[in-house]
């Protein structure tokens, strides 16, 4: 078996066509790594600079009324995750910055996709793109003749007559091809690792190492199952041509047609609400109460009456706190609660839409590796929602702190301002991307799908090979 593997490995390397293709793929991989790093650097610097600017601006405000500051607000810029230079996931299609202010939750604006024409819809050149789509193609070209060629030249009979079993031949070939593929992919991943851990710009740590290791492992499984699949198809099909056409057809179906079709179908099946409708609904419920029996003016009146009673006074002027601040704080809490419900509903709809694609991952390995890869890279939908939530949490905390400041100013606060140094004591937005442990539960389905494929193919496929009458 070892010698079969060695033979496949050596003859693959001697094959000029494979050499040309693999040099091309390697060149693309290296280029994609460098391009990914360059775009990572530009975008990251742009966002860091912008965040720094707005933070400075926030801290250096003049004396203002706290509610003015709440409207002045701040911006949250989404930093990119380190591994997103390998797989930018949905990053180009999500906004980069969100304006944080009192009373309302704004959309995350200025996505890369909005800043380019329809060209971006053809796909982006990233390492993940090469690994997910092009390397399988390389594997197909490499393996389609694994058995058919031996049969066409009659060498398979010779091999079997020496007492080697079909299964051993198959494993030998799989092992040989795996080494050849590893040779193509490894340099690019090594370069990526060197960039990630060798330079200052990434905060490397155990988390990043864990993510990268799992990233590499998942792709190893992905390539392995493609190799096994291609070898099985080659064994089952009558001719090299038939094997190649079958494999290419499967590639087109799995990598081009199914992902788009399922994503579109999901969106058709589970329609999402528009931002305009959602904002109107949030406003409606905040004004009239979540169940329509609790209008805001009644809530405010009750609040005021309660305050007068609590402090044992008969008019607003005698209160030690600002009624305006307290009402503001209450209504912010109420509307934020309403918003969170609607936001959770919206994301549940999106997750239902995406679930469809994830389940199809059980049938199509491409749709298993894609979410897994971007989940590990920290550039998937779940990570994006995490950022949105963090920005909203910061917005809410900031506005409520400002409301508390207003409350403490007492009656007639509108006529007065707070000192400029007040703003320097407020916390700034600092986004902490979630750790690997947070991301993993989201990725259970794709992991299971990939493993099922690998195990299923090795078991069923190989049984198919040894049961077939090849020679």
């Amino acid at each position, binding site marked *: 078996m070892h010698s079969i593997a060695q033979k496949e490995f050596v003859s693959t390397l001697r094959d000029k066509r494979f050499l040309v293709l693999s040099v091309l793929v390697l060149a693309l991989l290296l280029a994609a790594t460098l391009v990914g790093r360059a775009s990572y650097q530009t975008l990251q610097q742009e966002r860091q600079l912008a965040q720094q600017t707005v933070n400075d601006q926030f801290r250096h405000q003049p004396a203002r009324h706290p509610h003015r500051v709440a409207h002045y607000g701040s911006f949250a810029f989404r930093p990119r995750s380190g591994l997103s230079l390998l797989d930018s996931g949905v990053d180009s299609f999500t906004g980069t910055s969100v304006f944080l202010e009192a009373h309302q939750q704004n959309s995350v604006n200025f996505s890369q*996709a909005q800043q380019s024409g329809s060209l971006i819809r053809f796909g982006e050149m990233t390492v993940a793109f090469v690994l997910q789509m092009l390397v399988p193609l390389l594997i197909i070209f490499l393996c389609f003749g694994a058995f058919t060629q031996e049969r066409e030249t009659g060498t398979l009979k010779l091999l079997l007559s020496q007492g080697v079993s079909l299964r051993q031949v198959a494993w030998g070939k799989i092992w040989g091809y795996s080494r050849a593929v590893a040779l193509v992919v490894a340099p690019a991943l090594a370069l990526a690792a060197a960039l990630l851990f060798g330079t200052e710009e990434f905060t490397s740590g155990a988390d990043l190492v864990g993510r990268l290791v799992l990233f590499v492992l998942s792709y190893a499984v992905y390539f392995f199952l493609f190799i096994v699949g291609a070898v099985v198809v080659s064994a089952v099909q009558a001719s090299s041509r038939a094997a190649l056409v079958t494999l290419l057809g499967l590639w087109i179906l799995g990598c081009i047609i199914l992902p*788009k079709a399922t994503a579109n179908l999901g969106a058709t099946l589970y329609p999402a609400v528009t931002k305009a409708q959602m904002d109107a609904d949030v406003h409606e419920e905040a004004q009239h109460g979540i169940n329509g029996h609790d209008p805001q003016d009644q809530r405010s009146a009750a609040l005021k009456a309660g305050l007068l009673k609590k402090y044992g006074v008969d008019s607003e002027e005698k209160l030690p706190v600002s009624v305006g601040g307290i009402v503001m704080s209450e209504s912010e809490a109420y509307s934020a609660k309403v918003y969170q419900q609607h936001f959770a509903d919206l994301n549940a709809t999106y997750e239902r839409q995406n679930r469809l694609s994830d389940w199809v991952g059980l049938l199509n390995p491409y749709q298993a590796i894609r979410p897994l890869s971007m989940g590990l890279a920290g550039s998937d939908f779940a990570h994006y929602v995490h950022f949105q939530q963090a920005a909203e949490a910061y917005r809410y905390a900031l506005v409520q702190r400002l409301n508390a400041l207003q409350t403490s100013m007492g009656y007639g606060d509108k006529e007065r301002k707070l000192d400029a140094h007040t703003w320097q004591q407020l916390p700034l937005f600092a986004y902490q991307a979630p750790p690997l442990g947070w991301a993993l539960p989201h990725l259970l389905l794709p992991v299971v799908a990939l493993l099922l494929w690998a195990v299923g193919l090795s078991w069923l496929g190989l049984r198919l090979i040894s049961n077939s009458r090849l020679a």
Partner: protein
Amino acid sequence: MRIFWLLFSYEWRHFRAAKGLVLLCALLLLTGLYGIYYGTTEMERQRQHLTTLPELSRRNVEELKVKFPGPADAGDIGYYHTTYAVHHPDAWAALSLGQRDINPYYVKLRLLGLQNQLYATDNTNPMKVLSGNFDLAFVLVYLFPLLIIALSFNLLSSEREEGILTLLLAQPVSPGVVVSAKLAFRLAVVLGLAWLLSVVGMLWAQVPLDGRVGTWLGLSTLYCLFWFGVALIITALQRTSAFNAVTLLGVWLLLVVLVPSLLNLGVAAAHPVPQGIELTIKQREEIHAGWDRPKTQTMNRFFALYPQWRDTATIRERFVWRWYYAFQHLGDLAVAKQAAAYANGLQQRYDLVEKLNLLSPAINAQSSLNALAGTDLPTHLKFQRSATAYHDALRAFYYPFLFRKVEFTHNDYAREPTHTFTSQPELSTALRGLGKLLLSVGVVFAAGLLLLRARPINPR
């Protein structure tokens, strides 16, 4: 000529017998129909969303009428009243959705500064927009080349490999006629499918019957012809079926996947547009500085631009709406340069792609179809300009109330301007695309025929 038709009909019988190919065509037909279904339902959904917006505005007005039962200060109304600039799709958009799922098709507007409202996005599922739209244009641009490759990768090679070619060429037929009959048959199948799908799509989407019908059919025909030209070149090389399949798929990958993604990187690097973030930050600074600046300074800057309001009463109050809206507008003007640079930067990116799309007929075909349907970036930029003009109209409507201190009554809500914008096709872009496709077709066919002439067909 008789031999040509004989071979043609022989191909037909051969095709009918080959279950796999018939199945493939049927599958493509189905995916095409799904594409049309998806595109039309998606546009229907956008239209339906757009029809809910006047209702939302109406509800907002009802609420304001309760909040301000009598004549009100127009400043309060301008602050709380929301209205929408809407971008209606053209009927053709259902066949080529372009960027309509990424760029918002409505903008919610209040009388406040425009620049921090104009770039708000709608709710989108990023996973879905990443996967892209399965519309008819996708089927034509992405999948039809694959069908053409599947039908013609073994045009001669399979006959050679099965030993039939020797027999065939032993008859009194010229190899040129054999190749052209085979190509013509496949062309008939593919164009039949493309036209069928296009006509079904046009009927389904109820497009107006104008010159664009011809342009659409012309674009799809030329694009298919281009891929047949590529197949002709590969056939003329006279290699094995496996080599042909790999090479054709390689060309497909290059033109449909690699060139676009590399071009995208190049264009983004050539025209960086960080102004978007920059301008919103700067506009916020300007507007909020308005609160802290002396009121006369703000008003004098405003009056220099709008002298017609100069004779209005001097502001002595602590707060008055006309001053508030004056500094909101000055905030917009302070970033006018950045806003123009941002829009120009995007347009320049698009124009650069237009110049370079000769490199890949796939990009050319896609952007021409989008231009024809009015679903690409230039149309969105036009919509943004239209929304800006609408915001100007709103200001013009409210300013007399604010500066002449006219009370805003319940009847005035109905007098407020409304907005509508419908995509216009970028016909010149589409026609230019047609010309460029014609050129590409000419080049591949010339190369293919020259190759065929240079190397006579070898039956073995």
